[in-house]
């Protein structure tokens, strides 16, 4: 299935204009100038499909579901088809030794050029927690990373450890970037991540031969540059101080801000509010539930999904005891003070005229 992408698309009944339109939209989403859409289309049309190796570790397959299981065959899905996915254990036909053979071949043939996609976190507590063909996940990752041009960590688990890393982290789960230090890594967090972010990163790589600009957490700035809160259509209600207090009150029905119900939108950087989900149908806040912050590191342990950001993450445990200790200290000092003052009074010797002299 080698050959320019446009030919493959044409065979699938995708016209050039459809493709151009898609590229224009993609460029817009990635905050690239309008002219980039055309450049993108031309580059991608002529691009050869890169070899992609997909390694799943401690994951739930939700990321794969998100990207491959769309309602209708979308362009995202098609572009995804257009890469040479040489190893994806979940969806590939081959199994066992055959699959491992495919992996070895792909790594050998495309050494230094393939893209490595990882979903799931890597258990470091005991190598036995996760193995493939007798090798631990961490060995797999290190092997595959050696010859990779770049690594794309898909999902919060691969990006930041995710739910496996949640307290008390029984498997000692870590992220890809905790292990691999010498390769360019793009994190596409989210539980699951937004499909278009994935294709956007691929499109960028295919067009410009490089990875998009990343933020401090290794995420493409184009999609993770702003918080959910800042792009949220309910933001005006926050500014006006109108909040839903419960999930079924008047405020909730009128679509007011969900901040008080624990929405993590203010501290979550993602594109849900603009790109939306399910082909642009809706997204969590629009459906009436606060953002969980799933694309942020350690979102699982950030004090509870239904607790507003400005309230204590944990119930105050020390406060009552501290108050008692404080009162105790105060009383102790006051007894000491009274004794001291009493002693001073007792020791009082009437002041005489002689005392006034130096």
């Amino acid at each position, binding site marked *: 299935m080698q050959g320019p992408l446009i030919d493959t698309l044409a065979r699938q009944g995708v016209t050039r204009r459809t493709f151009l339109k898609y590229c224009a939209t993609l460029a817009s989403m990635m905050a690239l100038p309008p002219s980039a859409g055309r450049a993108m289309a031309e580059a991608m049309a002529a691009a050869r499909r890169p070899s992609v190796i997909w390694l799943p570790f401690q994951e739930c397959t939700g990321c794969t579901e998100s990207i491959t299981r769309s309602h209708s065959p979308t362009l995202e899905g098609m572009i995804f088809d257009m890469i040479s996915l040489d190893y994806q254990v979940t969806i590939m036909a081959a199994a066992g030794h055959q699959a491992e053979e495919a992996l070895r071949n792909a790594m050998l043939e495309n050494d230094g050029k393939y893209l490595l996609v990882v979903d799931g976190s890597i258990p470091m507590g005991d190598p036995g927690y996760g193995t493939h063909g007798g090798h631990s996940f961490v060995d797999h990752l290190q092997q595959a990373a050696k010859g990779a041009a770049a690594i794309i960590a898909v999902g919060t688990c691969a990006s930041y450890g995710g739910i496996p890393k949640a307290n008390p982290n029984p498997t000692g789960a870590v992220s890809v970037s905790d292990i691999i230090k010498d390769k360019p890594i793009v994190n596409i967090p989210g539980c699951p991540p937004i499909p278009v972010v994935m294709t956007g990163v691929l499109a960028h790589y295919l067009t410009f031969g490089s990875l998009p600009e990343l933020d401090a957490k290794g995420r493409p700035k184009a999609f993770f540059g702003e918080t959910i809160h800042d792009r949220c259509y309910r933001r005006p209600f926050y500014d006006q101080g109108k*909040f839903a207090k419960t999930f079924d009150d008047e405020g909730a029905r009128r679509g007011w801000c969900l901040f008080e119900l624990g929405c993590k939108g203010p501290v979550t950087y993602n594109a849900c509010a603009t790109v939306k989900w399910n082909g642009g149908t809706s997204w969590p806040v629009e459906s009436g539930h606060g953002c969980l912050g799933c694309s942020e590191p350690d979102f699982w342990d950030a004090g509870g999904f239904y607790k507003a950001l400005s309230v204590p993450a944990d119930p105050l445990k*020390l406060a009552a005891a501290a*108050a008692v200790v404080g009162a105790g200290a*105060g009383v102790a000092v006051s007894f000491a*003070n009274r004794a001291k003052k009493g002693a001073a009074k007792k020791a009082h010797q009437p002041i005489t005229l002689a005392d006034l002299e130096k």
Partner: protein
Amino acid sequence: MNDLQFLTWVRGTGLDIAVGIFLLGVLWRLIEIYTLGRKKDLAAPRHAAGASGLHTVFRRSLPPPGMLKRSPVSYIGGYIFHIGLAVIVFLGAPHILLITNLTGLSWPGLPTQFIDLVTVVTMAAMVVMLVDRINKPVKRFLSTFEDWFTWAVTFLPVLTGWLAVQHLLLPYTTMLALHILSAEILLVVLPFTKLFHAFTLFGSRWYNGSANARKGVPV
């Protein structure tokens, strides 16, 4: 520790420690101060309208005759930043939510834009107060490390809160965490610095007012 962990810590353990030290300090200091006792006044009291401890508690919130003109910066700046702080702390929606969570009391807040404006004005007033402290010979003469320190400790929560909301300097998550941390520092140092006047000023005004009320002088 990443920014969200930092935020979770300041919202959790950090807040617990800060509120704990605050309560501990407040109770300890209040008891320490007010159990020292005082002698009963044996002189026959005189009564006068408007003279009592309670009257003075309220009356001292207004500038005495002629004083506004003598020290306009202290009064106007002081009013603006005290009222500003109160508005921000007690009428900002996220702050009300915290108070509600801790005490169960709840009341409506003000629009974000208004709180924003109040914040800027408050910060401006605080900067003016600082400049006044540097410029004015009396204030400079009286100032110790504690005065500069408590100014900074009071200013930082306002500044970081504003920066967080405006998305300036640092990502929101980090700035929010710094904001909460700075407010916690304020809570921790409050009982042990001159900031404790927030509590003792009522006692002081009352003592002054009631002692002078016995003489029939409304002060």
